[in-house]
């Protein structure tokens, strides 16, 4: 790391061998050509995607808009949208990887077409991306957009920190993407167990990409957790008691608390692994007193609460969706809140079930096994609450509702296999088989992804002011549900037949039919994804006939529906006063919804700040420099990041005023639109008659 060394290797260990097609050119054997072509094709897609984005931005002269309206915006709504866009982009990559993996396994009897190393990179990136760069940004985006609206405030407590979180998450995602083009990604799975990921066995750049991508993502999530929890504690509208909070906000609060307490162990684990790899420390090495079990404990002390960080917000979405589309208050609100908190607390007491087989005594396994099974109780309470909410409700089978019902069936099944795995004796039999892969996909896809997609369909009209196409939404939801079953139910059987997870190939012909069924499922899931893209395209083209500017297309119950769609940048012209649960329903019933204010006042909003994108860019370059040992870049970026942060502290005059007159004009324009729109019944809510004003519910239905 001397000055001479830096000058001699200005690009660190980056050279032409880092390119994905280099090995194929040097040694064009059949295997090298196939693997090189797939890797280069993927890299090409990333490069083309980046070039196309840049070209389109330049052609339509949108750079300035991108910078001043989006990247530097401290508005929680825009940050939320950017999070969800990031999640969708990453979802496409990770889903395609899943199809390649399923294809490999379908043809994996005595071989297949992928090299073991390439296959290992695929499952490592697939897991890492799906958790840290699909599910996390998606749920963070929904929370960011919806929670301040649901609690009746104008922004989060730390708007600029919010933008920094987004910048760091995007930097981590970019790091995973660029690993396709230069060098390789880790082959150590999404949890990167040492000593395999130590420099002794893995001196290449793969584990380093993984370490820094996760470090950036975990820091971002810690900040998000702090921000959202502080916002929910401190910025609720007058009268909004904690027990009046909509369920989605409750789950967001619990997930935020989990982020605050569960992200630090991951930060410590990746930092210690980095110290081992970069400076020759001995935390997890085989020699000189390293202890792998410390890593395993640290990782799962993060990893298990993380499971509930992922699933809780989705459970919140289901609560909102089922209650709204049943036109009933949520059944058992109090039990639902208690169940959410119970899950959040229990989630810290079960981490050891991820390694029952790693040598602790039976009594310890038993204690953690029992704790793991206990989680089934609050989760079961939730399932019953949702079902009772639907009973005698005015149920409409909208797209979010289809996801919710599919979820209830499938999640119960995933939960039951979870109870099976929570028993250490059974775990010993099926651990490290694809039974486990089937189990966690059975909870993650219906539990997390369906919930996030339900939220996307549910709130899209609020965010963009027009409804999504129902027909393609149905096609997509059906394909997700059926495709999921086809892709993962066979894995339960394969697991019981003994197929180890992460097998690049196998020699048991009996596996083949089930593997082919799973591949068909993966193809159906691809169709589901394509249908989502098509739906967005069609919906944008037909947006004029599906506008719901008045803002309440589903006869919504919480405050986010009480403003225009899309909401004004300051959210509420007048901060509402809350007197009960389902605040907007109460307002509609008592005739206090859509009231003009007696007086409008100036509203103070945070000014744009470049700190978020600047820290995002510098942390990306910093991490890239660390991966490739480009030390001058590391020093430069570190200095730039510190300087930018300090300079931000010296900034004053960081707010701007929206004049009362403009607030009044916007509010009146919206109220006029509400008055002009025809209120529609629940039968018509999926037709273009829906302009965002709901007929009052029939007597009794809203009870």
């Amino acid at each position: 790391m001397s000055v001479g060394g830096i000058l001699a290797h200005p690009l660190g260990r980056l050279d032409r061998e880092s390119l994905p097609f280099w090995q194929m050119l040097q040694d064009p054997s059949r295997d090298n050509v196939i693997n090189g072509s797939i890797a280069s094709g993927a890299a090409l897609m990333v490069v083309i995607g980046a070039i196309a984005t840049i070209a389109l931005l330049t052609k339509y002269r949108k750079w300035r808009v991108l910078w001043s309206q989006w990247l530097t915006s401290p508005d929680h709504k825009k940050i939320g949208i950017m999070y969800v866009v990031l999640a969708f982009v990453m979802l496409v990559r990770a889903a395609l990887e899943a199809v390649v993996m399923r294809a490999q396994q379908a043809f994996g009897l005595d071989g297949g077409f992928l090299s073991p190393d390439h296959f290992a990179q695929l499952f490592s990136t697939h897991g890492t991306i799906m958790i840290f760069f699909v599910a996390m940004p998606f749920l963070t985006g929904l929370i960011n957009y919806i929670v301040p609206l649901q609690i009746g405030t104008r922004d989060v407590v730390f708007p600029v920190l919010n933008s920094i979180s987004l910048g760091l998450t995007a930097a981590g995602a970019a790091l995973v993407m660029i690993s396709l083009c230069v060098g390789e990604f880790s082959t150590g799975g999404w949890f990167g167990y040492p000593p395999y990921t130590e420099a002794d066995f893995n001196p290449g750049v793969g584990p380093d990409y993984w370490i820094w991508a996760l470090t950036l993502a975990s820091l971002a999530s810690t900040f998000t957790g702090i921000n959202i929890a502080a916002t929910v504690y401190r910025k609720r509208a007058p009268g909004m008691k904690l027990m009046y909070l909509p369920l989605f906000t409750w789950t967001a609060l619990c997930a935020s608390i989990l982020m605050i307490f569960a992200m630090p162990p991951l930060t410590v684990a990746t930092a210690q692994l980095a110290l081992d790899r970069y400076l020759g420390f001995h935390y997890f090495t085989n020699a000189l007193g390293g202890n792998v079990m410390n890593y395993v404990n640290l990782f799962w002390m993060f990893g298990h609460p993380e499971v509930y960080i992922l699933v809780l917000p989705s459970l919140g979405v289901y609560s909102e969706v089922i209650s709204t589309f049943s036109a009933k208050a949520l059944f058992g609100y109090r039990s639902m809140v208690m169940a959410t908190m119970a899950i959040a607390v229990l989630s810290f007491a079960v981490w050891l079930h991820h390694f029952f087989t790693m040598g602790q005594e039976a009594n310890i396994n038993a204690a953690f096994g029992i704790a793991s099974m206990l989680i089934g109780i609050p989760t079961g309470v939730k399932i019953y609450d949702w079902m009772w909410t639907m009973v005698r409700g005015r149920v409409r089978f909208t797209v979010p509702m289809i996801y919710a019902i599919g979820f209830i069936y499938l999640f119960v099944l995933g939960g039951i296999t979870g109870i099976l795995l929570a028993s250490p004796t059974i775990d010993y039999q099926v651990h490290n088989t694809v039974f486990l892969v089937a189990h966690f996909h059975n909870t993650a896809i219906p539990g997390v992804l369906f919930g996030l997609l339900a939220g996307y369909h549910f709130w899209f009209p609020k965010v963009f002011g027009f409804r999504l196409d129902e027909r393609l939404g149905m096609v997509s939801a059906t394909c997700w549900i059926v495709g999921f079953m086809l892709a993962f139910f066979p894995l339960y059987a394969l697991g019981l037949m003994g197929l180890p997870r992460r097998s690049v190939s196998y020699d048991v012909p009996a596996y083949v039919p089930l593997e082919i069924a799973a591949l068909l499922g993966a193809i159906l899931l691809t169709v589901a994804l394509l249908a989502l893209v098509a739906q967005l395209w069609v919906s944008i083209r037909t947006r004029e006939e599906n506008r719901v500017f008045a803002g309440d297309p589903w006869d919504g119950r919480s405050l986010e529906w009480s403003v225009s769609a899309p909401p004004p940048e300051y959210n509420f012209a007048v901060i509402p006063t809350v007197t009960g649960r389902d605040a907007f329903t109460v307002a509609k019933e008592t005739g206090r919804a859509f009231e003009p204010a007696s007086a409008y006042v100036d509203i103070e909003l945070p000014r744009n700040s470049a700190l978020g994108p600047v820290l995002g860019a510098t942390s990306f370059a910093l991490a890239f420099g660390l991966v490739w040992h480009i030390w001058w870049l590391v020093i430069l970026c570190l200095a730039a990041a510190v300087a930018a942060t300090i300079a931000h502290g010296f900034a004053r005059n960081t707010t701007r005023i929206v004049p009362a007159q403009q607030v009044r004009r916007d509010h009146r324009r919206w109220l006029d639109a509400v008055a002009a729109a025809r209120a529609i019944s629940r039968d018509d809510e999926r037709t273009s008659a829906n302009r965002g004003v709901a007929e009052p519910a029939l007597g009794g239905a809203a009870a």
Partner: protein
Amino acid sequence: MSDAAMPDFTRRPGPAERGDDEDGEAGAQSVLVGFWLFLMSDAIIFGMVFATYVTSTAATAGGPGPHALYDIPSVALQTVLLLASSFTVGMASLALKYRHGAPRLIGWLLATLALGVAFLGLEIHDFQAMAAKGGSPSRSGFLSAFFDLVPLHGLHVAGGSIWLACLIGQMAMYGVDAPVKLGILRLVLFWHFLDIVWIAIFSVVYLAGMT
């Protein structure tokens, strides 16, 4: 950290609307709540690093252990310096609360900064002495854990010192305005937090190591 959430203890008649929890003192309280949450998260980081240390005390791999490496008189002096800095930073917060004027406030802050820097100087000196005795972090799992925990605290003190210097710089430019006040309040919390962590380090690492 928007100015919308900046404090003023004299009830700024700001443009933010009544009832909206964004004006003056309520906004400052929100920022402080957020900072407490950050400290909790940071406490978990220290907790995990403490756990690493405690599980690694036997992993000396034939290398030097606590008796050969720890310089207790120096550590005792560091403890005195850090506790004294907690006192001075506490006096700074009192100077802020009772409006003793900027010179006294800056005086207490500079004293804190001096004590913090002296602490860091001694600590770095100790680390060098340890390395000279064959106690470098790559020698054993035990030393890796030591050099995770104690320098992590030192890094926090260094960060706090830079932050403190920046706050003095802000005072020079803007006087004791609302952002500076809120910054000092958070810095004081941070500094006391680091003191508590140091007491844990002194007990768990140094005292327990000498038994």
